[in-house]
């Protein structure tokens, strides 16, 4: 297979990139691990953050910019935050012109809802199914474009020749055939790595494949310790533990209560209360449960029943049916039980803010898999804005990159040896990858979770090293055709890289900031206003830290200065 641009991942970022590149005239192939239209974007509920000021007239890009930097706890890349704040409104209107529908105000403008950490009502939404609307709209657009789509393809390796991207190898799950994709550039839009944790809101797909592919190809990963714990995940029944309870419940007036019926957020955050940033609310819930004020299932209560059945069924139809069907709980009458769940990775592949290119020529990255925009904590609604804004930037710039360039050939014996490596996992008597996955996700949950401490993380790193050795014995029966077990082996290899990066970065960062909280370093420290970079140094994972670029004066005056307790 041959195309100017290869895009891996068909979530919002990948599809928006495909549309941009096709519009410029590039020849595009988009491959996806699942079926098209099923990507994790579909799970996004709350909305798209954009300062169109249809509801709160005072909103503007400057405030959106400032909120993003401040709630990202000052280690986000200001250039990306500026691009996002300025371009999100046009991306929303454009999505509407592609056919997406949003709820409306009385004047017929786009309805926007309040969300944690946003100064104004800023999230454009349709009920609590915004992600579905976004993905279906982009899916239609891509299906009607010239982009060629290959779904249920699992990419196993990126090939780099003379420092430049040359191609990628994938397994077509439905046939079991290997396909080599020769391309001049690649856009990695494979989403996050939430499934390296036991309790997560993330889909089957989110095993951090794109991070590992990029790392192995020589790209740098940044701020991998910054994992977002969403405050409200379901806890019961066990089969749905971790499943997301949208922040819109709180945005629409839901309150958090402990088992003493106390609205505890008044204590932790008297002003913003339930709508403080996610890291703050998640930690507060964690403390309440630790203090013994949680339910028998290890949860606190989230109550919206005071808003009445009509309101709830109209504004939160997905939540209503989710609780009714899975837990047998009627949220119009009873409170929900919720606890934090792994939701998002703020860190990821380091990219140039203006082009989304990585340090490897021809390799681009956009969406959750890329880092920089969200700093230490992502605001709700900024991820959907992110995939639209930076998806387009990736598509545009990949086109600029490939324009006039030639294909680079990959030797067939290199491809053959990769095929042999993958086929090597098919054997009798191999170690079950799911047992290893189970152990790894438990280690991450227990030792590199919402509350971290040095000794735990050192133990986690030791356990990951041990798992790496045992992973060499992984193997499954069957063939290459639709073999989830085989994918499981390949995923475990990727997850081990991602977990090592998370655990080691988390151990390095000796402070608490955003999604990263350490009981042994409970304060935020000025000397850690830095980004942690991890890279592949000849097979060994190495780390460096770099200072966060300073805000230029015209932007600095928009942002509340950073305060450190000890100064």
């Amino acid at each position, binding site marked *: 297979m041959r195309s100017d641009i290869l895009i891996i991942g068909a979530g919002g970022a990948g599809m928006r990139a495909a549309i941009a590149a096709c519009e410029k005239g590039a020849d595009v192939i988009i491959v996806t691990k699942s079926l098209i239209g*099923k990507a994790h974007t579909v799970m996004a509920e709350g909305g798209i953050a954009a300062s169109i000021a249809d509801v709160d007239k005072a909103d503007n890009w400057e405030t959106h910019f400032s909120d993003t930097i401040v709630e990202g706890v000052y280690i986000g890349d200001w250039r990306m935050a500026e691009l996002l704040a300025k371009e999100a409104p046009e991306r929303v209107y454009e999505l509407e012109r592609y056919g997406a529908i949003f709820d409306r105000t009385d004047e017929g403008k786009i309805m926007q809802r309040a969300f944690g950490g946003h100064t104004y009502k800023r999230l454009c939404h349709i009920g609590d199914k915004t992600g579905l609307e976004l993905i279906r709209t982009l899916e239609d657009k891509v299906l009607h474009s010239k982009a060629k789509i290959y779904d249920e393809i699992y990419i196993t390796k990126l090939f780099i020749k003379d420092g430049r991207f040359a191609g990628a190898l994938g397994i077509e799950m439905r046939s079991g055939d290997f396909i080599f994709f020769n391309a001049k550039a690649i856009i990695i839009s494979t989403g996050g790595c939430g499934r390296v944790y036991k309790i997560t809101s993330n889909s089957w797909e989110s095993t951090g494949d794109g991070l590992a592919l990029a790392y192995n190809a020589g790209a740098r990963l940044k701020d991998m310790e910054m994992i977002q714990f969403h405050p409200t995940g379901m806890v*019961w029944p066990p089969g*749905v533990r971790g499943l997301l309870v949208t922040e819109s419940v709180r945005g629409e007036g839901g309150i958090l209560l402990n088992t003493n019926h106390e609205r505890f957020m008044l204590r932790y955050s008297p002003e913003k209360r339930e709508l403080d940033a996610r890291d703050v609310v998640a930690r507060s819930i964690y403390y309440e449960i630790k203090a013994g004020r949680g339910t028998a299932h290890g949860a606190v209560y989230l109550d919206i029943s005071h808003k009445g059945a009509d309101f709830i069924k109209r504004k939160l139809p997905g939540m209503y049916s989710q609780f009714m069907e899975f837990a047998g709980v009627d949220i119009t009458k009873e409170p929900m039980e919720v606890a934090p769940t792994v939701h998002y990775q703020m860190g990821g592949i380091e990219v140039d803010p203006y082009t989304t290119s990585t340090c490897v020529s021809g390799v681009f990255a956009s969406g959750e898999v890329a880092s920089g925009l969200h700093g230490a904590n992502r605001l709700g609604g900024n991820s959907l804005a992110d995939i639209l804004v930076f998806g387009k930037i990736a598509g545009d710039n990949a086109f600029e990159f490939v324009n006039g360039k030639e294909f680079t050939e990959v030797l067939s014996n290199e491809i053959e040896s990769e095929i042999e490596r993958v086929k090597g996992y098919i054997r009798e008597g191999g170690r079950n990858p799911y047992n290893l996955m*189970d152990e790894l996700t438990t280690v991450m949950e227990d030792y590199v979770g919402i509350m971290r401490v040095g000794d735990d993380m050192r133990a986690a790193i030791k356990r990951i090293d041990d798992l790496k050795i045992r992973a060499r014995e992984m193997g499954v*029966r069957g063939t290459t055709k639709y073999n989830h077990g085989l994918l*499981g082996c390949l995923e475990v290899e990727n997850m081990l890289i991602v977990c090592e990066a998370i655990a080691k970065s988390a151990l390095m960062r000796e402070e608490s900031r955003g999604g990263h909280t350490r009981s042994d370093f409970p304060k935020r420290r000025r000397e850690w206003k830095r980004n942690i970079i991890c890279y592949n140094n000849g097979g060994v994972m190495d780390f460096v830290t770099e200072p966060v670029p300073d805000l230029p004066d015209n932007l600095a005056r928009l942002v509340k200065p950073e305060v450190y307790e000890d100064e």
Partner: protein
Amino acid sequence: MSDLNSVSNRRITISIYRSESRSYVDYTVPLEDGMVVLDAVRYVQEFIDTTLAIRWNCKAARCGSCAAEINNMPKLMCKTRIDTLPDKIRVAPMGAFTNVSDLVTDVSENYMINRQIPEFKPDERAERPWRIAQIDVDRTKEFRKCIECFLCQDVCHVIREHKADYVGPRHVVKVASLDMHPLDTLDRSEFLNREGGLGFCNITKCCQEVCPEGIHITDNAIIQEKERAVDGDYDPLLWISRKIRHNR
């Protein structure tokens, strides 16, 4: 899945279709509170026989990947609680689609059909940013809930019997979602009646019964589109007046 590994004396037997032997194989798995069919099937795939081919993704009834026939009823595995089923549980792949392996079927024809449906084409003269009434949003909202699980296609007896002639319920819903958009300018009734074979549907409402999103596929999409087709064929003025009626 470790929750499923925890000590439990309760066990269930689940019978799953295996394509290699073309037969159902029984598996015994531990039972947990609130467990759904997908939990049991995943347990089999992960810890009993990793070669079992399954398709799933979100496990939250939002992506529509895990459609199957459970005790002969088209359902999402992630949304079907074990405690709602009789003791005997039998899981089969969707029967209207070509089988790829075990519980996985080839649903790619649906994406081909989507490609043929004329895209959303907005009124270019509408002043930007657009003003749209909430009542018009509410009208199209129902059709936009579709998660493309294709259970409605699976249950449709027209598709099962005359595959090539009728696009099927999912795609009528798609057309309805576009047609109901207040700023759309196209008439897709010709497409639905000619290439789409809408006339083959004899309104048995089976699709509506299996929709996990509760979309009134027959009542609100198929019947409306059938009427629109008739009106459109004989009275284009009526169609135009419907299209512009929303303008306030």
